[in-house]
């Protein structure tokens, strides 16, 4: 399966040139760009690990693309996403977020159903990868 979180997951994986154009878009809007990675792709896993601090006050996407390359060197077997953060009043949150790296093999999620209270079902989504400890989940790829 393919995890389709983020803004561009239905398109073919973005090239570095395409990623740089999106980063430049963020910078021109005055947003801070953040690189995050994880090996837990659960849809409600909000806090991916940060690759350093969000990059404030930059003008050129090149520096951020270098950080992405460094992050990929270390965590290339995991999901990596980039996001643009807008600190202006009334938003003060993420404005755009898209996946820029993903494991070669995405085993996906198991849907667990617990029958409760008559016909009701209590649902839980579990990533198959989470059967292994953090850091080793996609390591054999």
């Amino acid at each position, binding site marked *: *399966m393919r*995890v*389709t*979180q983020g*803004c*561009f*997951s*239905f*398109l*073919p994986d*973005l090239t570095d040139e*395409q990623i740089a*154009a*999106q980063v430049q*878009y963020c910078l021109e809007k005055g947003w801070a760009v953040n690189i995050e990675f994880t090996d837990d*792709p*659960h*849809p*409600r896993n*909000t806090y991916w690990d940060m690759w350093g601090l969000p990059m404030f006050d930059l003008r050129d996407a090149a520096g951020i693309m270098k950080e992405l390359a460094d992050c990929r060197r270390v965590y290339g077997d995991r999901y990596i996403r980039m*996001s*643009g953060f807008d600190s202006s*009043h*009334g*938003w*003060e*949150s*993420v*404005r*755009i*977020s*898209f996946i820029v790296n993903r494991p070669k093999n995405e085993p*996906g*999620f*198991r*849907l667990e159903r617990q029958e409760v209270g008559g*016909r*009701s*079902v*209590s*649902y839980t*989504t579990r*990533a198959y990868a989470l059967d292994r400890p953090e850091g080793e989940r996609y390591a054999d790829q």
Partner: protein
Amino acid sequence: MNMQQSITVRGKDRYKSGVMEYKRMGYWEPNYEPKDTDVIALFRVTPQDGVDPTEACAAVAGESSTATWTVVWTDRLTAAEKYRAKCYRVDPVPNSPGSYFAYIAYDLDLFEPGSISNLTASIIGNVFGFKPLKALRLEDMRLPTAYVKTFQGPATGIVVERERLDKFGRPLLGATVKPKLGLSGRNYGRVVYEALKGGLDFCKDDENINSQPFMHWRDRFLYCMEGVNRAQAATGEVKGTYLNVTAATMEDMYERADFAKQLGSVIIMIDLVIGYTAIQSMAKWARRNDMILHLHRAGHSTYTRQRLHGVSFRVIAKWMRLAGVDHIHAGTVVGKLEGDPATTRGYYDICREDFNPMTLEHGVFFDQPWASLNKMMPVASGGIHAGQMHQLLDHLGEDVVLQFGGGTIGHPKGIQAGATANRVALEAMILARNEGRDYVHEGPEILAKAAQTCTPLRDALEVWKDVSFNYESTDSPDFAPTATPAT
């Protein structure tokens, strides 16, 4: 400066028994300067033939505040001058002989804090049936900060909705399940599953899906949530379906909303026809229960569509932002339902901005502060398809739910394919826009390129290539873009 003088009768002559013209009773005060705390309403007044326009407008002020048809001595037991609404400006409507814009100011003490029902009982109460008027339309309102702050506002708001769904940087995608009536719960859930798995973020009950013989509400909720959870596991994305909890009584609605919550739904839905008080109650419930609240504007066209009589949708949008819904249907411009581009732009601004400057060419007559009230997500639904993606993004922007019902379910290769076509078209357009391309003009080209690697999109573009709804609007702005307000 207004050259007209007040003709209000003062002193004890004001209270002589009998009938007196409204404009002499204190409801026409051309030199009144509205206070920052006043509620201001702008009416389009069309008096009966032979009725003096100023008197007609003063009557609107009177009948929507303290007046009755004759002088009453009991006015003298009150601070009557404060409580009288004051018409302070009357302008002829451009290019519309016989109609007048009446600006009327109301003291804040006339209204119960935080109650849309109370506000509307005055502003659109008896006055709309007043005989000396041929027609009356409430065009816009200025709600002062002091009054805005007495309302909860949207239960969730655009920002937190996006955070909860983990979806940023693009419009959300939805579809209304069709056919809207007749599907069993089991078949209905199938549509939800297919559409969500194919790439949509939301599915939606239609306004008249409640609990009918072919599908009772509990069945619908159970099967829909099976579809939602299956799709969530298949994609790794948060998915939702607007479970319509509209019902005959508040008790029924609370019961349905509680069941939706128990099943893990992120969103519920209500219809405008449940009424203002019920809407506010459900907004409070939604805030207490971490639920996004979708409003379908069922019924609004009975009073919003005609220019001469009724209530403009921009006013309904303002009331609904105060009342506290998170989603509101606000037009598509290019789809099958009424919606002039400039007027629709005005509605969208009312939903999404923290401050609306007066913009006459969009039909926005007043500066409107929202005092950090949450933003409301507009929903575009009705007769739209993937081939219009560039136009939709241009007209409606990024913070909007684009709902392709027929445009998903009617796809020749099935519902999943229809959903995928829409999602790919959207992502390709956002990518191109952010890259700085002239996506409005290059739109068809961008879609054709994306379709090269996406067969469902290619099919969709082919099937609906000639579909458009070009009819003249019945509700366009009165002012051209260059117009400036009269001083």
